[in-house]
């Protein structure tokens, strides 16, 4: 097992309604894909730290639907729903994404699983919002969560692995 952490690259360009990210994993593409497909595994990593994820449905296939709720430690909850438009094993997925607290602000999320050929995988994503304002609001909601988690967690992060 490696001790270094792969860097997350975020690109949030001004004036356009999308966010790009790139992240590599020390695992084969099939394992990374499976971690997105199996709801029991998804539960273990998706969403903000310290939130419990409750899955109502999660069918990671073309035409499948999903709905889940993140429960915050202070008994708040945030629900999300959408549809997997296309899912190709070990390759690609595109889905809709809606935070139920902001109905109709549906984002389209693209996900590419790049096999790097040496047992490593590069995950690339683009989330496209309806408007620049909507995208910024999404980043801001991340801000609130991030602030709630607080800087005391930074230490945990840097010493985690």
């Amino acid at each position: 097992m490696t001790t270094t952490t792969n860097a997350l690259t975020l690109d949030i360009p001004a004036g356009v309604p999308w966010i790009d990210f790139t992240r590599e994993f020390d695992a084969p593409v099939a394992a990374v894909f499976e971690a997105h497909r199996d709801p029991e595994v998804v539960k273990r990593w998706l969403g903000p730290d310290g939130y419990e994820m409750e899955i109502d449905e999660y069918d990671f296939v073309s035409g499948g639907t999903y709905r889940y709720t993140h429960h915050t430690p202070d008994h708040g909850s945030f629900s999300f729903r959408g549809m997997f438009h296309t899912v190709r094993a070990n390759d690609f997925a595109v889905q809709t994404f809606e935070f139920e607290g902001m109905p109709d602000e549906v984002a389209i999320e693209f996900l590419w699983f790049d096999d790097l050929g040496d047992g490593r995988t590069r995950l690339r994503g683009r989330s496209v919002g309806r408007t620049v304002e909507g995208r910024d609001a999404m980043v801001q909601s991340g801000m609130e969560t991030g602030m709630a988690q607080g800087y005391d967690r930074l230490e945990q992060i840097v010493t985690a692995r």
Partner: protein
Amino acid sequence: MSERSDEERLDAAFAALADPVRRQIIARLSRGPATVNELADPFAITKQAVSRHIQVLEQAGLVTRTRDAQRRPVHLDPAALERLTAWIDSYRLVHEHQFRRLDAVLARTSRDTSPKEQTP
């Protein structure tokens, strides 16, 4: 006095930091409080101009000035800077956390299924 929203405070802070002179003043103050004279020293601009920059930083809530002391040294407000970095970092933070958990999940999966050779 009307309470400014977080949004307005962030706007003011980012606008204040858009100026290179004010960024240098902030950098200097990160090492400790300083008087206007001390802050004006490295710049080839008038003390009045530096005073105006400090006023902008003050209005943006990034620095404070001690009222009673004669020297009226300027202090950096670390909480204000933290709000800025939090705004930039927190979206990243959430995603970092998430992907680190995915790392852990994947590491466990590969341990459970096939004993993979170690990556340097």
